[in-house]
């Protein structure tokens, strides 16, 4: 009965057809090919439908506010897009947001040392960027200038010492910074661009000679120093790891990008980024210390971006600025005049109600496997607007209760996953 379909059996013609098919192998093959073709076309249509649906809804899922924006844009021109409570507001993890650029704007000079050149970028009075590229002996190789016009039609001007000037508009995806200027000037020099006769193209937001091959930029980098306003300076350099067992329960491997933050020459603290172990360690004595590894960022699938020297320099300053501000200002409620009993109590027992990085009230566990539980719990609290009262006002938010249940389970199982980080 090979080749008999259920339909054939039902209408009683199956036996006859099977006999015919048995007698004619060509017809059997033809029927089989037709069936396969129908299946392939069907599967293809279903796959295409799913793909199109995913593609259309992906931006909305990535940014829930966008769904409202779509609705708003379709209603009427000039309609105000509201952001109702409960809608999560924020950029995409891994992309530089306005906070990054606000800090970057506070830098006054970037000095990048490469293996064969030194690039120094500064801001001019009118907001333009001026970069001087020189060899290791201080001889000028080229100048690079970013003429900030309106943020969209910015013009870059590359003037090699041996060659003709090149002018071009920046790419729409490029947001020029001092670090980018250094990188761009160095790239043009390495590509041997000596005049506008050389064909250029944008590659990864950097202007390159058309067809130029990839360079190992990590090997070219030696050191980056960022000078900030008010005497702050951060410097990132590369070295081998000296203490691979510095973090309990973890072994660090490979090289480390070490960033030191200073103010008027006095050491303030450090950040260490270990690319191979995907771990960031920092210490600002009196302000903050800790580490973040890829397993702390599971919800983003690990680090959503690759920390580079410019980010490390900026993050060092941001740690200092933000933590100092938190220590200075505390909470808004604490700025109000308190009764003398509270002030007297505060003298002996300073209030520290902030959600600190690590295990609040259990910081001796910060270097242990329990740190993971605390970080996930902190993140969960931050994402859902919980606070310490959520423990006893458990009926007010089940999401906060879920955060707490996760923490208890995580502690109970010795730093394990608990609910697997759901809702975090």
């Amino acid at each position: 009965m090979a080749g008999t379909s259920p339909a054939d059996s039902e209408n009683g013609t199956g036996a006859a057809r099977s006999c015919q098919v048995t007698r004619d192998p060509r017809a059997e093959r033809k029927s089989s090919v037709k069936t396969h073709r129908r299946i392939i076309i069907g599967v293809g249509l279903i796959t295409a439908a799913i793909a199109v649906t995913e593609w259309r809804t992906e931006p909305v899922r990535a940014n829930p506010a966008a769904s409202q924006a779509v609705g708003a844009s379709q209603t009427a021109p000039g309609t105000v897009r509201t952001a109702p409570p409960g809608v999560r507001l924020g950029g995409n993890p891994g992309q530089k947001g306005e906070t990054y650029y606000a800090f970057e704007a506070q830098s006054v000079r970037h000095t990048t040392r490469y293996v064969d050149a030194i690039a120094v970028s500064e801001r001019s009075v009118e907001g333009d960027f001026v970069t001087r590229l020189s060899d290791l002996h201080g001889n000028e190789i080229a100048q690079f200038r970013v003429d900030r016009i309106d943020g969209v039609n910015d013009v870059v001007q590359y003037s090699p010492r041996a060659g003709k000037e090149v002018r071009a508009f920046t790419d729409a995806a490029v947001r020029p910074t001092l670090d980018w200027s250094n990188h761009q000037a160095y790239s043009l020099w390495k590509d041997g661009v000596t005049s506008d006769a050389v064909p250029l193209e944008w590659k990864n937001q950097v202007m390159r000679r058309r067809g130029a091959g990839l360079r190992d930029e990590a090997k070219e980098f030696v050191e980056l120093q960022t000078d900030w306003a008010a005497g702050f300076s951060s410097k990132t350099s590369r070295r081998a790891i000296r203490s691979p067992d510095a973090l309990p329960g973890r072994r660090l491997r490979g090289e480390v990008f070490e960033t030191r933050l200073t103010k008027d020459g006095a050491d303030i603290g450090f950040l260490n980024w270990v690319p191979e172990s995907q771990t960031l360690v920092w210490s600002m004595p009196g302000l903050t210390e800790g580490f973040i590894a890829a397993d702390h960022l599971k919800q983003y699938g690990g680090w959503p971006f690759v920390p580079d020297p410019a980010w490390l320099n900026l993050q060092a300053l941001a740690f200092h600025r933000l933590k100092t501000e938190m220590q200075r200002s505390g909470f808004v409620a604490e700025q109000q005049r308190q009764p003398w009993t509270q002030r007297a109590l505060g003298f002996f027992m300073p209030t520290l109600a902030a959600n600190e990085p690590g295990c609040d009230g259990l910081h001796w566990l910060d270097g242990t496997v329990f740190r993971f539980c605390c970080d996930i719990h902190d993140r969960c609290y931050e994402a859902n607007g919980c606070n310490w009262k959520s423990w006893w006002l458990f009926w007010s938010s089940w999401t906060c209760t879920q955060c707490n249940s996760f923490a208890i389970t995580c502690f109970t199982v010795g730093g394990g996953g608990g609910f697997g980080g759901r809702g975090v």
Partner: protein
Amino acid sequence: MMRWKSLGLGVAAFTLAHLVEMAAWSSLFGGNAFAPWFLNSSRAGAFTALTLAVVAALTATRENSETLVRGLNVGLGAAAAMILVLMAIGPGTLFPIALAVGLAIVVTASVAGALAGAFLKGAATRTRRSHPSSDS
């Protein structure tokens, strides 16, 4: 089952340990990153546990059951002081877990200290009995 003197000693011992930690926090215990609190630094935790153990050992008697009760009372007194101190410095986002861990540490240290004190007292008594001339 309440031993008010032991309870008071527990409160006093924990408070004293906390004040010492506050005074020497930056130099001996936890640095400046976090508020003085015995669970914010392993050294501070060990210091508090040792203080409670010593105080509980001083309350020990020759009777093991009475020693156990006194040790528990020292631990409960310390736990009461611990809760007050945590509320005063500001409960963190994990405060119930911190209290549970703290309770386990102070009660264990107090009971262990009391039992150790009883053992030492018993040993001292036995030594005196075996060497009566040294007492006279």
